[in-house]
């Protein structure tokens, strides 16, 4: 049983990176990671030892993120949308140039539709194969690659426009 926690803890930095990319905001991303870990610990008996824990965890992070997006949408139906807040997308440890780039990339990613943002996260950032990413997202490969290509084009042109 303890092997599960140990293996999971080695994955944390990677899962946190993906969370940051998906959620954009530092606090939201860490909340997302926390929720995902709690969900994973509860569902641990569903994980089959010997199968890839990274893919299993990435799927949980992604599903928690989608849940959060949905509940946020519900909240926005009852409350006025928040003013566009300060971007807290980086922690101030980096130099100005890095910070500016980070800000631009983060913003461009947030402007992408979620289904494009997540495929870019899984394939381009995480380096998963098309097959692995399609399995995690539960979509056919053709759907995955078309979202990927649309997302790439949109992101590239947004970043060029900066």
């Amino acid at each position, binding site marked *: 049983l303890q092997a599960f*926690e140990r293996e999971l803890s080695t994955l944390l930095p990677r899962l946190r990176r993906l969370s940051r990319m998906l959620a954009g905001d530092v606090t939201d991303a860490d909340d997302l990671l926390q929720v995902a870990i709690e969900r994973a610990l509860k569902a641990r008996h569903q994980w089959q030892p010997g199968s890839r824990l990274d893919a299993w965890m990435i799927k949980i992070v992604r599903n928690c993120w989608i849940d959060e997006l949905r509940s946020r949408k519900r909240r926005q139906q009852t409350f006025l949308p928040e003013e566009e807040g300060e971007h807290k997308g980086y922690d101030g440890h*980096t130099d100005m140039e890095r910070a500016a*780039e*980070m800000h631009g990339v983060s913003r461009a990613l947030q402007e992408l539709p979620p289904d494009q943002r997540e495929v870019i996260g899984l394939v*381009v*950032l995480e380096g998963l*194969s*098309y097959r692995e990413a399609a399995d995690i997202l539960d979509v056919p490969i053709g759907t995955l690659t078309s979202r990927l290509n649309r997302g790439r084009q949109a992101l590239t042109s947004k970043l060029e426009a900066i």
Partner: protein
Amino acid sequence: MMHISDEELMAYCDGELNSVAARELEQRLRDNPTLLKQVEVQRHLREKLHRCFDPVMQEQMPRATNEALGSRL
């Protein structure tokens, strides 16, 4: 010269082609500056994402996260 589709080019950029297919595509790309440029753009995009998000992996984990796991170790 055989046409190179967007899908094929992206599959190449994502490392989805086996080594034989990748070498073969590289041959076909050689005289195609437009497509070479696209490959370059995608390489830069990947590098940019890593430059932005890889440092997250060095940050100290929030205490709550460590505790969620640590309390069970």
